[in-house]
């Protein structure tokens, strides 16, 4: 079984939620990103979203936009991200989800990408600007390669579309809990419990909630409602602030560890 699916199933029997941190691959460097993935695993990550930098990230707020730009300036590319996963797999079996935009995958070649990513040890892919109704070729290629296909849902998603997304998602469904781009928020979206319940009912899949979760308190609150808690910008910000700091990896591990404990109800 795919590592992402296996992890969600194991967590279900334990009755706890998944902690799903995000980092941008290649920020501050690809070597350090590999180390950060291992640090996030030690901190208690269940699935790690590994962001593929793109020049025009329309779904992202300023923190992740800037991280992508730093990574691209240092030569990051989808090919190098896949190579980094291959290197991580020498020492770690942590479930890895690539978080990408469509054009780098299209330029790579969808089938070649699916084959190379799976061979390197990627477990799934979330493509921000590829809704399921445009994803026929992509879905086919990723299914054949054994990769999970995670799609987004939003507060504006209709019941019919939730059923469609549910049918196309494997692993879990990602719920963008508020209108807008990625970024930290001081308050959680209202009506989150009802929204998550509706998505669970109509998709029949585990739901991970993301966009705007930045503190252990928020993470703990979301963990009580959904099968997964995604934290992105808050971690990327810590990476940005400590990019030149020799203690970067330890700092991120500590920061993520607090979030992980909150998700697991250990605070």
């Amino acid at each position, binding site marked *: 079984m795919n590592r992402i699916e296996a992890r969600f199933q194991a967590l279900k029997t334990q009755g706890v939620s998944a902690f799903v941190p995000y980092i941008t691959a290649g920020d501050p460097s690809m070597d350090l990103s590999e180390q950060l993935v291992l640090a996030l695993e030690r901190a208690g990550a269940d699935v790690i979203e590994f962001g593929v930098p*793109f*020049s*025009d*990230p*329309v*779904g992202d*707020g*300023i923190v992740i*936009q800037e991280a992508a*730009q730093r990574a*691209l300036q240092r030569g990051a*590319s*989808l*090919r190098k991200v896949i190579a980094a996963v291959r290197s991580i797999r020498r020492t770690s079996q942590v479930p890895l989800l690539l978080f990408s935009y*469509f*054009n*780098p*995958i*299209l*330029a*790579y070649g969808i089938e070649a990408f699916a084959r190379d990513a799976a061979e390197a040890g990627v477990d799934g892919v979330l493509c*921000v*600007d*590829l*809704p399921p*109704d*445009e994803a026929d070729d992509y879905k086919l290629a990723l299914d054949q390669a054994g990769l999970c296909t995670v*799609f*987004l*849902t*939003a*507060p*504006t*998603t*209709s019941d019919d*579309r939730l059923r469609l*997304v549910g049918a196309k998602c494997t692993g879990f469904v990602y719920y*963008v809990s508020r*209108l*807008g*781009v990625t970024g930290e928020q001081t308050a959680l979206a209202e009506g989150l419990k009802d929204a998550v319940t509706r998505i669970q009912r109509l998709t029949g899949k585990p739901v991970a909630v993301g966009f705007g979760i930045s503190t252990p308190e928020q993470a703990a609150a979301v963990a009580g409602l959904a099968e997964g808690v995604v934290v992105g910008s808050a971690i990327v910000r810590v990476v940005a602030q400590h990019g030149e700091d020799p203690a970067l990896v330890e700092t991120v591990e500590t920061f993520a560890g607090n979030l992980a404990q909150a998700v697991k109800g250990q605070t």
Partner: protein
Amino acid sequence: MKEYEALSTTSVKHPWPDARGRYGRFGGRYVPETLVYALDELEAAYRSAMADPAFLSDLAERQRNYVGRPTPLYRADRLTAHLGGARIYLKREDLAHTGAHKINNALGQCLLAKRMGKPRVIAETGAGQHGVATATASALLGLDCDVYMGTEDIERQKLNVFRMRLLGARVIGVDSGSKTLKDAINEAMRDWVTNVQHTHYVLGTVHGPHPFPMIVRDFQSVIGREARCQILDQEGRLPDALIACVGGGSNAMGLFYEFLGDTDVAMVGVEAGGTAIVPGMHAARFAGGALGMLQGAMSYVLQDKDGQIGQTHSVSAGLDYASVGPEHALLFTSGRVEYTHASDQEALDAFQLLSCTEGIIPALESAHAIAETIKRAPTMRANQTIIVNLSGRGDKDVQQAAKFILKGEEI
């Protein structure tokens, strides 16, 4: 005019987009899930508006009395005599209110926003013409208007920035990426994702996710509908060639669309050749681009081998964009339209030639179409005709052009 409209066979011979918003393999709707509902809502509102005689007559009345349509189809005798060869007609979109074709779409979409009950509109702008048009239509219809513009473009187009503010719009500087049009679109999409429930995004060209390329084309197709009637009135037959510049491609689609079924009418789209056809120095997507997906639509995209979007250059901000409308991509691959490019220098030469032969200062964008006309007209016979879309007037570009033409001398 009505009797000629019946003669156009475009919708039969060119049945695009299909039900999935595609033009062959191009187009589509590649957006974050949050926006899917807004695009569905927009398409439904658009189809209902276009079937509503009250909406259509309101639009037509405002086009006539506010925009000043129909714009003239002007026979440019001195330019024709100067070049020798085909008779040249200029479709005078520069005489439309606000000085460019952009108002055709901005007015239509702002009327749609009102119909959808959305009190706020946003727009992206490069040179500022679409921003000015949207700010104008918003003032006319009492909508709140925010315009995203790259900080580099704000610096280059100060006059248009002030015009927008005068019209009551807020101009929001975009400091990310290359700080130009592409980045303004990214930021407008981020705004739309966040405020989608009460905001309509007035996209300014035939690009972006479906239904935008269709809506913008349809609102701009008034250009070709008028031109087709006008040339039949003046010449008694259809033209031999149409020429238009292509950035996103809205003025070109607007002129071409009504003629697509007329297989004897040749069509030429002119992209920005910049300083050279090497990466980063031009914006000729059909010369240097590859299949890609940028900002919602599958099309031709200037990009590197890793799928990162390339930098572009043109003397004209309105053509300085890394992708091109998906319908143009279809017309390129089908061969129905020929795409070529004009360099910065050729455009500047054309800018001066039209000014002194006809007393018409064209926008630098439109000057690219004139540049192609300068090459093509002399190769055609005197009994043949060309319609050039003079998509905008050049007042906004005088300062920019002076920099190149005077080479450092004071204006």
